[in-house]
């Protein structure tokens, strides 16, 4: 993990969590053309947890690390599930339709590139940052 001072790291992750929560909410509820409850419920939960965790970090409440861990676990689970489902679906479509050309591969690659940083890389980085060191949290 980087040697970022605890206060600066707290600020960074707090802002990142709030922005990620907003991004998920806007992306799903304003960006997607149709409503589908599995996606809507997952996105709603993730957005709420991310914003709450970010605010908790920025405000510096005592239970912030616990909330961040919960938010990261949910984000990681949903993110990995999304990418896995996307990859398996692409494999299924390629099996049904045969070679799909560079266009299909590019679109899938871009979708994965959009999802991975926010729902996989960021929560992983936070979980590593919050790992117990001598029994103390990092905030």
């Amino acid at each position, binding site marked *: 993990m980087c040697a970022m001072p605890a206060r600066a790291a707290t600020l960074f992750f707090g802002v990142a969590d709030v922005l990620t929560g907003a991004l998920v909410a806007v992306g799903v509820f304003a960006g997607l053309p149709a409503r589908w409850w599995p996606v809507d419920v997952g996105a709603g939960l993730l957005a709420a947890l991310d914003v709450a965790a970010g605010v908790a970090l920025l405000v510096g409440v005592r239970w912030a690390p616990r909330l961040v861990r919960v938010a990261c676990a949910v984000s990681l689970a949903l993110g990995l599930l999304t990418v*896995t489902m996307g990859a398996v679906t692409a494999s299924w479509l390629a099996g049904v*339709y045969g070679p799909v050309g560079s266009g299909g591969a590019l679109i899938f690659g871009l979708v994965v590139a959009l999802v991975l940083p926010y729902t996989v890389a960021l929560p992983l980085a936070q979980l590593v940052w919050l790992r117990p060191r001598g029994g103390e949290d990092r905030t």
Partner: protein
Amino acid sequence: MKLRTAARLVIVWVVATVATCLLVHRAFALRPDESHPSAVVASVWSAGTLVGRAVLAHEADTDAGIDAALAAHPGATLVHESIVAEGAILARPPLAFMFSLVPGRDGIAARLDGRIAYVTPDDLLARQAYDRGLSLGAIQLSFGLDVPTTLAVLAERLGVSARDVLDRASLSRIRVVRHVPTRPAVTPDSLTADTARRGALAAARYLARNTDSDGRFRYLIEAPTNRRVPGYDWPRHAGATYFLADAAAASGGDPDIAYAALRAAGYIRDHALLRCGPLRCIGDGGFADVGSSALAILAFVEIARTGLDPAYALLVRDLADFLRSQQRPDGELMHVYDRTAGHPIDVQSLYFSGEATLALSRAHALLHDARDLEAATRALNHLVHGAWSFFGSRYYWSEEHWTCQAADDLWDRAPSQDALDYCLGWAAYNRKLMYGPDDAPLDVDGAYGVGPFVTPRLTPAGSRSEATVATLDMARRAGRPQEQVEPLDGSMRRSLALLLRHQFALSPGVYPSYLMAEPEAVDGAVPGSEVDWVLRIDYAQHAGNALLRWAEAASAATNVQAEQPGESLRTKSW
């Protein structure tokens, strides 16, 4: 979580995901073997109805039922569909079922209680069940298999309920190769001016046959049943009239086409010509729009110019006055007029400004009113500068196919190098979007689409070719280098060959005429896509117009190889 633990988890996840993907692909991919079909489905079709079916071991085998069906239905067509591969299908969830077939290539085999039933691609095409599963109204597209219809057919053939098929039957995907006479496929290399011209005139004759005695088109037709589908649209009526008038001239005065053009123009004049304040306009009810009025001008100009009825020049003058009154000082047009309130509404819709620019240019060519030329020039200048200028505009272009036709039409009176550069950029962008022969499992070379799994629509190939042939004409007249000219012609050949491959040319016994109840009614039509056989009048209009323009340009290019840059390759008579 420790860093090492996190890294291990990520590696495990990546390996597991890759392995799952490989397994899924292997389970669902087909490996067709055309030389060893597992079975051959023999079908007898008469006027779009299946009247006999048998499953044979080999194509050469005979079957008493098939022979009897052929004897009972003179003129029926025997079709063999060889099953060259069979594989797994996901019947649940419904969304997976919808996307489990390659449209036009795949069918379904259902096994239940020792019996087997097939739904072949021809069965699904006759029922228009491909690309009907899920409809996105916002983008006017539908995707996927119509699962209820497919299950109903299987249920009928197995003598059980659709629920039984879904719950108890073993379903599999079959890849089918059809053995039936087909006409020779047009390729970009085999495309000639004569082929293109004949295709354009066939499209015009289709429209003419489907114009009633009042001049109203059969706007939407489901081709297999020849049934009319509800709906109508004035801009498309005017656009189809414009093409008919143009085709009448190109045909050397084919009376069926010419008379249909006159009837259709009369229908606009008698049913859609309104008062917009002191001026005349085209619309419906309390509102008139620039698009309908512009396309009506295009139709009326052609009718007056070609001598079908010179009196239409008077209406051209009146409607051009209306278009000019809708123009803003910056050249843009206000697209709607509120007839009740008596003033324009400054909103913009897709296509209308380009249509108005072309209409004003054509009006000037006919009537020589300098105000029309000035208005057309200002509108074109706005379209190629102010209307499409923002950060990133070089990398993204709107759907567009009228502006470049207007720029080409104006070239002999007000040439604009900026407009030509705009059109070359637009055409280069579209070449990037164009599918190549291996980009999808369908016949897509020269098509534009929204993804490899959605059957590409044919209309964009037609409408964008209209604009591309105009750009090609301008580039040649401007003396632009060959490296700018050749890609335009190459991309257009691919799109036009695609349109001709899918245009209905319905000789008896030739695919797909046997799937039509009344093939003569829809002969010459251009379908929505390879598998969407609901016919709308603008499909034939755009494809026919593109073919006609390219044929004119190709003929002229052949005849005047030595022509100097700056001279038109188009056969204009004004």
